[in-house]
Structure formats: C-alpha cells, structure tokens
C-alpha cells in the first residue's frame, strides 16, 4: 500500500470531467458520454424495431438474411463493430467521418441487434388470438402488427429497453479507443497528465458511471413491478 488516497485531483479537474472543454471547446467528459448514449439509444430503438419486425416476417427471403445479420452482430465484440465502422464508413462514404459519428454508428448497429431480440420477445409474448381477432375484423397483417400487437408488446418491452440503455451507457466507454473524448477518455487523459493518481481517478469515474447506470437500473426495476401490477388487473 502506497499511503492514503488523495481526491484533490478530482476537484481540480471537476468541470473537465463533467463537460470537457465546453463551452469554449467541444463537449466532452460525462456530457459527451450522455450525448452518445442518448443519440445511439434513440437510433437503435428504431433500428431494433425494424430489425425485430423484419426478423418475424412471413417472407423467408426477408427473415433469413435479417436473422443472419442480427446473429452476426450479436456474435461479435462491440470493439470489433466499432473498428469495422472506423474502416468501412470512410471507405463507403468516400470522405472522413467524425469519430463521434463513427462511434454512434457502431453503437447503434450493435445495440439494434440486441434491441431486435427484445422486440421479438415482446411480440411473441402477445397471444396469437390477438392477431387472429385483428385479422378477422378486416385489418391487414401489417396493420394488425402495428396497431394491435406492437402497442401491447411495447409495454412489456419498456423495462428491457431501459436495461439496454444502461448497457449502452457502459458501452460508450469504448469510444475512448477511437479517440472520442468522453468520460473514460478524459479520465485516461488526466491520468496521463497527473501520473500519480490513477486509483483515485478510476474510482471516481467508476462511481460516476455507477450513479448514472444504477439510477436507470432501479428505474427499470420499478417500471417492471408497476407494469406487472397493472397487468394483473
């Protein structure tokens, strides 16, 4: 043991941890972490919805490729997906892509695959009778899905979506690897600059992530209990 921990370094760099060089420079630190997580979450919500619905399509020519795509993404480490984006996006678009967008794309693709499984489970949890009833009232199959099944399934999906958001917050830390100055990156930067306080810095960063993630984990549990209670009536 090397003596006492000294958290002064945290206080000295507190705003840098929270917002980076903002407002005189780009947003960084915790602010950027939240930005990345929220944007990727919104995008992958729709991505997951589309992939989930397509993976349940009655047309095999759609269903099989989509399922293969989803399983491929789920079989890869997120880091690999981010590296792919890092190399593929500039090649495909013919110009350099800002790192923030690279990471958002990687996170969105990766998380969409997981979200699609939630959507799928949510839809499969709705009794078949609902679709049959909807079809017999004259709705088309896609209408039955969109207006009858999805709204009911969505309620069961919400807690899982929130959990996925928590994973997403944790996953944004990987943006550090391609040089996006979010919380983890800021932490390693300050660590490299100050040299003597790695323990304090990483405990602090872990605590920040913990507070953020635990809040949402608890929220999801609360939601789960509440939604289950409503269903019982």
């Amino acid at each position, binding site marked *: *043991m*090397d*003596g006492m*921990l000294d958290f002064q370094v945290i206080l000295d760099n507190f705003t840098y941890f929270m917002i980076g060089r903002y407002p005189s420079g780009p947003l960084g630190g915790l602010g950027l972490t939240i930005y990345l997580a929220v944007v990727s979450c919104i995008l992958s919500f729709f991505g997951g919805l589309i992939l989930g619905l397509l993976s349940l399509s009655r047309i095999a020519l759609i269903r099989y490729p989509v399922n293969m795509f989803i*399983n*491929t993404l*789920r*079989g*890869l*480490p*997120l*880091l*690999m997906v981010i*590296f*792919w984006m890092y*190399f593929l996006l500039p*090649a*495909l678009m013919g110009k350099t892509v800002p790192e923030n967008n690279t990471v958002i794309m990687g996170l969105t693709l990766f998380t969409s695959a997981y979200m699609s499984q939630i959507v799928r489970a949510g839809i499969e949890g709705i009794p078949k009778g609902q679709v049959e009833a909807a079809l017999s009232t004259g709705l088309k199959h896609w209408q039955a899905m969109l207006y009858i099944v999805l709204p009911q399934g969505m309620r069961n999906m919400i807690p899982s979506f929130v959990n996925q958001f*928590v994973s997403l*917050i*944790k*996953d*944004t*830390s*990987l943006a*550090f*690897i391609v040089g996006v100055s979010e919380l*983890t990156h800021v*932490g*390693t930067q300050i*660590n490299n600059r100050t040299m003597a306080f*790695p*323990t*304090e*810095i*990483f*405990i602090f*960063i*872990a605590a920040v*992530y*913990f507070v953020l*993630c*635990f809040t949402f*984990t608890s929220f999801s549990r609360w939601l789960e209990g509440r939604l289950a209670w409503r269903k019982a009536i």
Partner: protein
Amino acid sequence: MLKYNFDWSIVTSGKYFEWLVSGLKITLEISAIGIVLAFILGLLIAVMKMSHFRPLRWVASAYLEFFRNTPLLIQIFFWYFGSYKILPTVVNDYLNNTNFEFAAAVIALTIYTSAFIAEDIRSGILSIPKEQMEAARSAGFSYLRSMQYIILPQAVRITVPPLVNQFLNLMKNSSLAMTIGVMELTYQARQVESYSFKGFEAFTAATLVYLVLSVSLTALMDLYNKRVLNPQRS
C-alpha cells in the same frame, strides 16, 4: 466502388497468420481461465445473496450492483493502473512478477462476469419450485442434502445455457484487454492492420473467428435445449 486490392493470402499463411493464431490462443486462454474463476466466484456470491444472514446479503447485493453498473473498460483500467494503491504489498509484488497485463485482464473479466453469473445461478435455483424443497425435507433430507441431491442437480441443468452465454460474453469482452496491451485476437488484428495496411483482411479474419466460436457454441446450446431441457418436444 472501392479501389482496394484484396490479398487474402496474408491472413491465411505466413507471419500475420501466426500473429492471429497466437492472438486466438490468448483470447481462448483468458476466456477459459476467466469462466472457471468467474463461475466459482459467482456461485459464492449467489449463495451469499440467498443466505439468511442479512449482512452477507447486503455485501452480495452491493457487489452485484456495483460491478454490473460500471463499464468493464473502467474496471480493467482500475485493476491495471490503479489497483497498486489499495492492494497489499505482497499481492503487488506477486503481480509484478507475473505477466501483469494478462493478470489484470483476467481479474477484471472474472469479477465483471461473476456478477452476471451469480444472477444466472440464483435465478436457476429460484426457478425450482418450492415444493421440491418441501418434499425433500419431509422425506427426511437435511437442508444441505436436499440442496445437494434435489435442488442443485435440477438447477444446474437449467443454468447451463446462460453459463455458455456468459462464456461467449466473456470471450467477446476479452477484446477489451487489448487496451492494456494484452495481445489477444483483436489486438493482433489491429497489429496486422497497422503493419500491412490490410485492415479489411485482418478484421475479416478476426470477425470470422469470433463468429465461428459463437455460432458453434450457440448451436451446441440449442441442441442441449432440445435434447436435455425439453426432450419431449423433439
């Protein structure tokens, strides 16, 4: 569309191929050691969490919540860069004499994964109906013996698929060890890319390796589900 000359031979033979193979070996090594340690630790935490002694339950809950709600990357950095200030000197000396990057990665991955495994084990045990325990107790088994002969054998069967899943997660997560210089598969793919500028080939090779591993294990698990868990359906 792309002006790029593919040269697959560089990743199927020669120096770069050997790099990738050595990377795969380290990935598998970390995953194998990690899953065994994480299972033991996870079992311990699960038992603590279900204990009737409250402080033990609190400790287990705090452990679970903390390690599940912080990014793995931060945990890796903590063990690699920051743990020396809070670990006893003996442990530090020992770690400095081993391959410290590898050790830090294994410690971080083990602890992170154990928190998820503990929940899987716990829900496996909780999924066995209470009546099983009651019936075992009224047949004269003690609490521990009922656990040993009645509850656990059933729970273990249910817990196998989630455990395999955790093993796959562990394997995928071990790619983060590259950030502290462990030369596993993703690290080597990156190396090949920066030495040969053949990024597509290198990353395709690594991607395929990850996919083969996860697809084959998933297929095995499906088979297990069909044959062992729901034999009447097949």
